[in-house]
């Protein structure tokens, strides 16, 4: 790319780790959502 932006293998590993971290955040959100649904279903 113009401007010299190269991506090394080490960068890729960091990116993948970052992506996984973000996926974990979503999993936690989903867990909260599921917990709410379970409680609501039990109560109704």
């Amino acid at each position, binding site marked *: 790319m113009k401007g010299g932006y190269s991506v090394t293998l080490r960068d890729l590993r960091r990116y993948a780790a970052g992506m996984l971290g973000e996926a974990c955040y979503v*999993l936690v959100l*989903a*867990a909260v959502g*599921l917990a709410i649904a379970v409680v609501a279903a039990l109560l109704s």
Partner: protein
Amino acid sequence: MMRRRVLRVLRCALLAATLAGLVWPAPVLAATGATLASLGSPSSGDLVEHPAQWDGKVIDFQGEAVGEVMRRGDSAWLHLNDDAYSRKAADDIALAGYNAGQAVWAPSELAAQVKICGDYSHRGDLVHVVGIFHAACPEHGGDMDIHAVKLEVVLPGSPIARAVSGVRAAAAAALSLVAAGLWLLWRRRHRARGRAA
């Protein structure tokens, strides 16, 4: 130190519980002993507007199969559109109107009758099903669907031949020429300026 470890264990447990919760099988709808006597033939609009009225009832439904038949083991998903397009004459290839339809869950051997699904280059088979309507199907994550017990192709679909318009081809050629000319001019100016700078 200890607290952090406890927190980590808690976090792992939370994740594991989520995963377990997600793969836990939803309660499968008990095989219905409903009779096949249909209680009516509502349009998808009727079903969407009055889901409670039709929930759990056996209905007739007819529409154009679109997209594809997605086989999942011994059953399959298909989507039947009953919008204006599906009611057009067979040789009419013009577009017709807004999209409306219903998802249908059918045994694979029934669904296999559907050969052509509607897309850009095909008009799909017109399919008639008899089945049980679910406003929020407990077996399928609350999706609105029809579980078909009978399925027949009423009118086979066909490929749509699309002619390339001569006027558009000419317009494309003319516009491309003008665009190319402007680009060349722009590039010359750009280069000249680059040299000057």
